[in-house]
């Protein structure tokens, strides 16, 4: 399991999958738990449909480099991102992989990989677009660096005022991932 004192996460996938949002939620957990956090997105001319990633650090100490080149947690939602980042994960780290969208050929033996059919689960439960939160649920189950109460508060704070129903569906998605075996 990753060191729960310092999360150095890289989240990656296609634009539109909620990669940056999932990263922002991670940072929010740290914020609410009074930890030091940083969130750094990739930014460039290609967004929707292109690949996108972000680096999130949650730590007890002030964050030095916000750019993470050797993550201890990888969170991937497409094959190109898996291929690009899987080799960068620290030995002993963990990877959370959307099995529906990633065909992983190279499975590393020195890290722990969790395959979750997040996109299929989202469709099955009528939670289209919440695969990112399902994967986040599994992440928090395996790397328990915050409390369920914090998760609830973070989801609440990040629910747009015009879409209050998002809170319940995100919470549901989180639980699906959390309870996925």
């Amino acid at each position, binding site marked *: 399991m990753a060191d729960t004192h310092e999360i150095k996460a890289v989240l990656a996938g296609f634009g539109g999958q909620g990669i940056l949002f999932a990263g922002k939620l991670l940072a929010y957990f740290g914020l609410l738990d009074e930890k030091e*956090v940083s969130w750094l997105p990739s930014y460039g001319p290609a967004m929707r449909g292109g690949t996108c990633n972000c680096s999130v650090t949650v730590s007890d100490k002030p964050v030095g*480099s*916000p750019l993470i080149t050797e993550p201890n947690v990888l969170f991937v939602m497409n094959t190109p991102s898996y291929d690009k980042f899987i080799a960068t994960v620290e030995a002993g780290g963990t990877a959370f992989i959307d099995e529906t969208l990633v065909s992983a050929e190279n499975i590393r033996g020195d890290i722990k990989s969790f395959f979750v059919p997040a996109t299929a689960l989202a469709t099955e439960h009528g939670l289209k677009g919440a695969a990112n939160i399902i994967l986040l649920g599994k992440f928090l189950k395996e790397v328990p660096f915050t409390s369920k109460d914090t998760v609830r508060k973070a989801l609440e704070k990040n629910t747009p005022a015009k879409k209050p129903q998002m809170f319940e569906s995100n919470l549901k998605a989180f639980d699906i991932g959390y309870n996925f075996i």
Partner: protein
Amino acid sequence: MSERVLMKGNEALAEAAISAGCKCFFGYPITPQTEISAYLSKRLPKVGGVFLQAESEIAAINMVYGCAGTGTRCMTSSSSPGISLKSEGLSYIAGADLPCVVINVQRGGPGLGGIQPSQADYWQATRALGHGDFHVIVLAPSTVQEMADLVTRAFDLADEYRMPVMLLADGLLGQMMEPVVFKKREENGKSFDKSWAANGHGGKRKHNIINSLYLEATELEEKIHERFKRYDEIKAKHTMAESYMTDDADVIIAAYGSTARLARTAAEKARSLGIKAGVFRPITLYPFPVNELREATKTAKRVLVCEMSMGQMVDDVRLALECKIPVDFFGRTGGIIPKPEEILEKLKGV
């Protein structure tokens, strides 16, 4: 408001500018600073301010020139290529002794360059922001919190010394989110003399003139001397720097802005390997914190300057140390962010 909030550097800067009393913003979009404009376009009109997207960077800086002449707190922001376009206007504003705040969220250059983070505009900011004998104060934030804190400081310094103040950030600081606390502005904060402002008086006094043209050479020389006296006062009173683990250090990494964060990580790693490393971070780039650097390098045998450029601040470090301590340089450029491991490798070789 003393709550910790999670915000992008660009947005935190924009929010802090409003609480610092910025009433007018003139800008033109360019990556990676557009969130400043976007944020102010939503918020400024709601607090009685003016947000105006100009037709170009040149128009925006000239709007600042006009607005600053009325004594109103105002700001413009851009990224590297856009700052080059503002250079004529900035020279005029400096020549007319007007206060304003200018933000540069640097990206790779020259030319249109790239949109990734860079620190290649150090020379431009500290030496040649426009033609003529002048300086602007240059402040370099290193965290999202400092993006907010230093913009407040920038407005105060601009008003106190009647000159432009530049915040020199980069794409990394602009785009990243970190917790930030907005300090409440003291209600009885400093008030500044604005009796020079051309803001309409109904014929009750002699009119003020805002101008940068002095055809009489003796008059212009006198004006410039007066301005440089102010720079001397700023040098004596307002240099800022941060020293980290420098007390017993054998080697000091000198870096500003986001590179200083990477240097910090590198220095911590070096310490765990038994290398006595420390970090010196200038916060004011003009004036350069010469005395602070000399103090921080008292025990140092070597200095390694790190920048996201081919080496620009390294000149100021060498000038300040007067060749008494060997100075090396490591940099990445074109939008590449150096890795702390790369800095560490260089440190081992120094």
